[in-house]
């Protein structure tokens, strides 16, 4: 018997879970209240992490990024800018991290190579000539909407149904188990139920609202980050600041543009985030530190979206992700232990590792259902995103 899974949310997480579960033989339906990737995923930086950003404060996350970076290069090469990245030291304090950084990269299996400053300036002539060190890493660039669409296109090809503009208004119960979702089609206001054997909550900053429908307390703290795009491709590679995670620590070039980010501040309602003007100014100033003249290029968009941070007040029993050291960055829950059998949640994480997150979610679901089909997302290439529409 084929089990039917409803996934709530068509961000990169929900899309990757859809892909993973269809390959394991589940029947999948994705419901999304807006457009694909219209919130948290859509407004991320589009950085395919080398992993180097995390080597000092979260080595397991760094290793995961490095592994999935290498995999995504094989699985979706046609929609990635693969020009690599640089970590540059802009002052003496940055420089003081260099040795520990290089050592930590080696420890975590993140390829990194220090290059002479002269060589860095040859590769990126617009870079601040006063940089004190440069380290080459294997960053890449994607557009988050198309990244997500590639997962959904492939899931659809394997039988998944994707319903956009379809908002979950309640859960459906069979006795004490969650057995589906009640949705409202936002195009015509029609409400109907979709029955399911399992429901996966991949609603990002809105995961708490879905949890509340099952009386499961999931405290998600929405933390916003501001990014500013300018209409000039100042650099070919991703330029990271060689320092602990900080505001304005990265420039991601893409298409003809350069996107500088990011900030980090808690917001109350993730539905609408008013970006403070001083943050736009701060980001442009940060861009100027990397690239003198950065802000002379025309403004090409200001964006912010809420990242879901799981608050420790959540009364949840974490599903054991097993011995693979899969981590901190995200959490998968089987809410049977919270009194809502049939409901699962996947919260947090990074778009770079959405395939891996989905693999862990799939393992947790397999454990609950007794299905033994293994994860196949490491081998199966993703279809072109246009296939989503055809």
């Amino acid at each position, binding site marked *: 018997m084929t089990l039917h899974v409803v996934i709530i949310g068509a961000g990169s997480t929900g899309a990757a879970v859809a892909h993973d579960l269809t390959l394991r033989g589940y029947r999948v339906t994705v419901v999304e209240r807006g*457009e694909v990737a219209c919130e948290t995923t859509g*407004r991320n930086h589009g950085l395919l992490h080398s992993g180097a950003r995390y080597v000092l404060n979260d080595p397991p996350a760094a290793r995961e990024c490095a592994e999935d970076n290498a995999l995504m290069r094989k699985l979706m090469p*046609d929609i990635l800018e*693969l020009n690599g990245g640089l970590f540059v030291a802009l002052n003496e304090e940055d420089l003081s991290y260099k040795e520990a950084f290089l050592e930590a990269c080696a420890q975590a299996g993140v390829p990194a190579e220090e290059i002479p400053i002269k060589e860095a300036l040859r590769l990126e002539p617009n870079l601040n000539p006063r940089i004190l060190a440069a380290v080459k890493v294997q960053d890449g660039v994607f557009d988050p909407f198309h990244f997500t669409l590639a997962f959904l296109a492939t899931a659809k090809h394997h039988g998944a149904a994707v319903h956009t*503009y379809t908002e979950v208004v309640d859960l459906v119960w069979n006795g004490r188990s969650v057995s589906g979702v009640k949705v409202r089609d936002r*195009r015509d206001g029609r409400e109907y139920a979709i029955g399911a054997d399992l429901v996966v909550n991949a609603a990002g900053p809105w995961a708490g609202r879905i949890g509340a429908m099952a009386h499961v307390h999931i405290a998600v703290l929405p933390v916003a980050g501001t990014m500013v795009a300018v209409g000039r491709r100042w650099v070919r590679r991703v330029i990271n600041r060689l320092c602990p995670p900080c505001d304005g620590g990265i420039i991601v070039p893409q*298409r003809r543009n350069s996107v500088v980010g990011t900030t980090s501040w808690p917001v109350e309602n993730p539905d609408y985030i008013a970006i403070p003007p001083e943050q736009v100014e701060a980001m442009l100033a940060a861009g100027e530190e990397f690239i003198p003249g950065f802000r002379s290029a025309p403004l090409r*968009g200001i964006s912010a979206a809420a990242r879901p941070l799981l608050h420790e007040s959540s009364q949840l029993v974490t599903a054991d992700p097993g011995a693979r050291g899969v981590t901190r960055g995200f959490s998968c829950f089987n809410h049977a232990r919270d009194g809502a059998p049939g409901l699962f949640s996947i919260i947090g994480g990074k778009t770079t590792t959405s395939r891996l997150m989905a693999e862990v979610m799939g393992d947790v679901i397999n454990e609950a259902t007794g299905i033994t089909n293994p994860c196949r997302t490491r081998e199966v290439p993703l279809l072109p995103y246009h296939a989503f*529409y055809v």
Partner: protein
Amino acid sequence: MRTLNLCILRGGPGRPAAYQTYRITVDEHLNILDAVQKVWATQDPTLLFRHACHHASCGLCGVRVNGRERLMCLTPIAEFPDGATVTLEPLRNFPWVGDLVVDVKPLMERMAAIQAPYVRRDELTAGGEEGTRFEDCIECGLCMSACPVVGSDSAYLGPSPLAMIKRLLEEPRGRDIRSLCLLAGDAHGAWRCHSVMECVEVCPSHVDPSQAIGWLRRYLILRGRRQPAEAQRR
């Protein structure tokens, strides 16, 4: 802060079409897309619109702003005086899904038929070594909405698909040149364009489809691939 009256065309298949006006106050350093999202978040959760990246990369937020095709994320609030009325309508020449949302399937089917590429050689970044970057076209559909020929001939390939064929003929990346020439040389291909230049005016992403179509015509003629007039009158 600036207060605008957003006059939005609501409705869709099976729903009556009517303009609805929302009065909204937003920071003037933001864009019309932020104003629309604020309306949805604070006044009317039934409002339908498309968006993702808010920096002209995803290609989702195209609408007609005061009659002209634009990306809402690139339409500054500061362009409009305090108290102004701004009319927002969905793109033309696509099936209407509802409110500001259209079904982009007709464009995506054309791009899929071409096997439109996403990554190209990076010709514009200074510095040593070769590199790649994303193609300029973000498949937003603004040109398809603005083009009067798309409006009168539903089989016309359209400005952005033709511009994409030009890009492939320039840099084939393993594609079959002959089938691309057949598509471009078809009666509903490059010869169908009337050079109205609306696509040039509305393109938010440096594509210049009209120039590309001229380039394609020249390419087809010089290679003897112009189809007979008979075929063009089909």
